[in-house]
């Protein structure tokens, strides 16, 4: 069931590749807009880079949340999935993982290239990429709760941002903080450990919560 969901969602995403690319290009454009807004001063850009990349990743991941359940809800697949005797948490976990593979992984792969634009050092690039690798799955998992709660509501897209962005804050702080700590010579280990802890906690708690939320929304 778990792998079946991932395979199915990836297949669907591959058949509509423009959706995946739109999220990725949104990420690239947001990151590229900041130097235009604040000026091309390299020292400032270097200190801003982790925060900018992380905020852009938050927004990009959030924007694509609507697709996680919406199309399945519209054509009735989601109802069938809820009726199936399989564990609902595993289903949600599969969908969140598929969402991460489709939106999170391209962001992680793209981040070093954007980091070079901001003149980051090689070590900072590595830390930024690893922090995104640990943090973006958390975004997909927490986002699943918001997506499940706002399923089928009018203005769901804006609403999901109000619900989910405050909950993303710890990931943002420690994700961007990891790069700053490593640049300050403190080492990124503590931040990475905390990001890992968030990942483990959200893997355990978020699918269950999102499953319960789906049941509420589908009643």
């Amino acid at each position, binding site marked *: 069931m778990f792998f079946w969901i991932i395979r199915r969602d990836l297949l669907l995403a591959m058949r509509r590749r423009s959706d995946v690319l739109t999220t990725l290009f949104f990420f690239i454009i947001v990151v590229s807009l900041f130097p235009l807004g604040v000026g091309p001063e390299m020292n400032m850009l270097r200190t801003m880079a982790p925060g900018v990349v992380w905020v852009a990743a938050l927004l990009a991941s959030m924007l694509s949340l609507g697709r996680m359940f919406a199309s399945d809800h519209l054509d009735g697949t989601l109802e069938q999935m809820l009726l199936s005797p399989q564990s609902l948490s595993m289903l949600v976990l599969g969908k969140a993982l598929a969402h991460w593979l489709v939106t999170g992984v391209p962001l992680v792969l793209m981040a070093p290239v954007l980091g070079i634009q901001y003149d980051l050092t090689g070590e900072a690039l590595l830390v930024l990429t690893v922090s995104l690798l640990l943090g973006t799955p958390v975004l997909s998992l927490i986002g699943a709760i918001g997506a499940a*709660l706002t399923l089928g*509501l009018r203005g769901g897209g804006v609403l999901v941002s109000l619900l989910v962005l405050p909950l993303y*804050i710890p990931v943002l702080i420690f994700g961007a903080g990891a790069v700053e700590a490593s640049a300050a010579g403190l080492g990124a280990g503590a931040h990475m450990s905390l990001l890992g802890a968030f990942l483990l906690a959200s893997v355990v*708690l978020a699918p269950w919560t999102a499953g319960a*939320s789906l049941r509420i929304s589908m009643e």
Partner: protein
Amino acid sequence: MAINWFKYSSPASFYFLAGKMIPLFSIAAIVLGAAGLYIGFFVAPTDFQQGEAYRIIFIHVPAAWLSMFLYVIMAIWSGIGLAFNTRLSSMVATAIAPTGAMFTFLALWTGALWGKPMWGTWWVWDARLTSELILLFLYIGFMSLQAAIDDPRRADKAGAMIALVGVVNIPIIYFSVKWWNTLHQGATVSLTQSPKMATTMLTGMLIMSLACWMYAIAVILIRTRAIILERERHTAWVGELQLQGATR
């Protein structure tokens, strides 16, 4: 003699109980508020470091306390509503949210007014200020989610879910923000240590907190009554109320 507490978990009987309790809590709020303000403005001494500006704590600290307490209480009622499927608990949770958001805003606003003369700036990105701001976002998220859902039962449950997720996240957010940056002074009042402030100031602040509590309870009861009437408008007892033309 055992009291049947569950009697009041029915919206119909709670409606009348709340109607009797509202005047009590309102009067208590007015009396305590007057006493607290009197102590705050006339009895409490001028602070030797901060001058008169410190007097804003008489509303700032109670508002900040209540903003946090009310969120926890809202989450508890949401959880009870979700677990036992009691309509009244969810209605109370819905009624708490606007008051909680108001106190959060008040704490931020009075904090800014205090910060300008003391720190020389309206706003700093400090741990406590930021987490209070995030608390305001959580309240707004809760209210807008409930407002967006037309079916009241689904609104109750979805709101309960986000309130509970928020309550799990608040400690995480609080500590992450705390490690991120801190300027705000530590807690002055704690249960484990003797207070680090003049007794009259502390008395004034505690009385003002009680006044804010009473005000919050009164307003929440009034709002709960309005929600009960709105949700139960098709029932017989609301119809009878309408026939009598009575509001109480």
